[in-house]
């Protein structure tokens, strides 16, 4: 069995090759179809949330338990030696890695997971480092796209909303660009995709289109990835004016392709009206559920040699 991820750290999407991403997606699919309740029996996984999180932490901890492992950890860094006594992250990591067989962490500062991986004796999985990376979100998004479309190849994928600050959108664009997808970026000018992503796409001659409203392109899409536009980034008049172009309603979906799926990393506020939930295109709650399978796949790959390319 060739498993290139065994005992590796999961820190940042650009670290992965196309083959490795495919291996994670295949493993998630396999575990979803055939649960492995004893795979991590007698293994201890530390759940280290130096910053609070709801979905990510619950889904990681569910993933460990569904594979038969035990979880130790903390949900708020403020109650740790690091928060209270001024211990460095480096020292905390040395100790945590001596107690556990792997650990996942979220931290409010960019680069924390990379740093942790350099001082840990066991695999580290990044559950979000400041505004930098959130690779497990991208991996669950890839799995969901694969599950709904049967392939990751050559899809037409639109991203809507806050494309400037949304780390999810940046990493997913980087990952899908390995599979020849075409992109549609729909955002107010103030929240447009950052230059470094556009430069990467240009350098690799990947097709992308910029649009001002969802309706301009919705009928052509395979995946419509919605994100939240944070109200606090705009003044009230500007927000009201701009909001209508970046909100998805069920009546906009009359002519769409049959295979279209709408995704959202959640939590949503009002960018997808609730009448969309009952259409056959809404897939965001299944996407959240897939977070558990994708994280099980990662744990299975970095902690065991059971899965891998034949």
């Amino acid at each position: 069995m060739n498993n290139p991820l065994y005992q590796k750290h999961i820190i940042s999407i650009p670290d992965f090759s196309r083959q490795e991403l495919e291996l994670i997606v295949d493993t998630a699919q396999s575990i979803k179809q055939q649960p492995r309740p004893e795979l991590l029996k007698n293994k201890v996984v530390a759940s280290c949330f130096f910053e609070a999180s709801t979905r990510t932490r619950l889904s990681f901890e569910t993933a460990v338990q569904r594979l038969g492992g035990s979880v130790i950890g903390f949900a708020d860094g403020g109650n740790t030696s690091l928060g209270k006594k001024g211990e460095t992250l480096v020292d905390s990591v040395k100790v945590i890695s001596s107690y556990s067989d792997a650990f996942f962490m979220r931290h409010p500062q960019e680069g924390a997971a990379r740093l942790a991986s350099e001082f840990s004796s066991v695999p580290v999985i990044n559950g979000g480092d400041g505004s930098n990376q959130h690779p497990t979100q991208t991996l669950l998004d890839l799995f969901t796209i694969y599950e709904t479309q049967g392939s990751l190849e050559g899809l037409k994928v639109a991203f809507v909303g806050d494309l400037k600050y949304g780390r999810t959108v940046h990493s997913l664009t980087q990952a899908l660009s390995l599979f020849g997808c075409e992109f549609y970026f729909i955002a107010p000018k103030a929240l447009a995709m950052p230059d470094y992503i556009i430069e990467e796409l240009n350098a690799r001659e990947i097709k992308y289109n910029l649009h001002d409203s969802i309706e301009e392109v919705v009928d052509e899409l395979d995946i419509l990835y919605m994100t939240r536009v944070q109200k606090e980034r705009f003044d009230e008049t500007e927000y009201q004016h701009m909001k209508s172009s970046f909100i998805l309603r069920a009546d906009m979906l009359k002519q769409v392709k049959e295979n279209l799926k709408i995704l959202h990393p959640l939590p949503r506020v009002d960018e997808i009206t609730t009448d969309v939930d009952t259409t056959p295109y809404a897939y965001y709650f299944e996407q959240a559920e897939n977070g558990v399978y994708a994280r099980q796949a990662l744990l299975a790959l970095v902690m065991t040699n059971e899965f891998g390319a034949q």
Partner: protein
Amino acid sequence: MKKKLQVEAIAHGTVIDHVPAGQGIKILKFFQLSAAQERITVGLNLPSGEQQQKDLIKVENTVFDENQANQLALFAPNATINLIEDFEVVRKFHVSTPEQVKGVFACPNSNCISHNEPIDSNFYVRHQQQDIKLKCHYCEKTFDRGLFSELD
């Protein structure tokens, strides 16, 4: 007409030539060249064929090592370094931009973990058209040269 040296020759040491005008003072400050109490001669805005104007630095009894020379390339990509012994140039080389710069600059991202931990900063140097950009190994953000206060 007799040709005259613009800056007095030195017996032993290093001459850094072809520094873009305006960068000479920054280089002195960055490398703390004056700290060693050696005699330093600096020429600012000297006439130069290729560059129109250039700065030039002569540091006596000091030899620039390769690591320093590479760091120098971030200020002055076309600089040449002349190592002098007994008033003769014994070695002359062009600086070359390093692939990585460790422990030299603080990350301009104030929320980067490298500020709070007992580690060296670490940047990957990338050439983009005529410019140099530095990508932080930790926070993964890419910065223009001008964002580093040490280089500006």
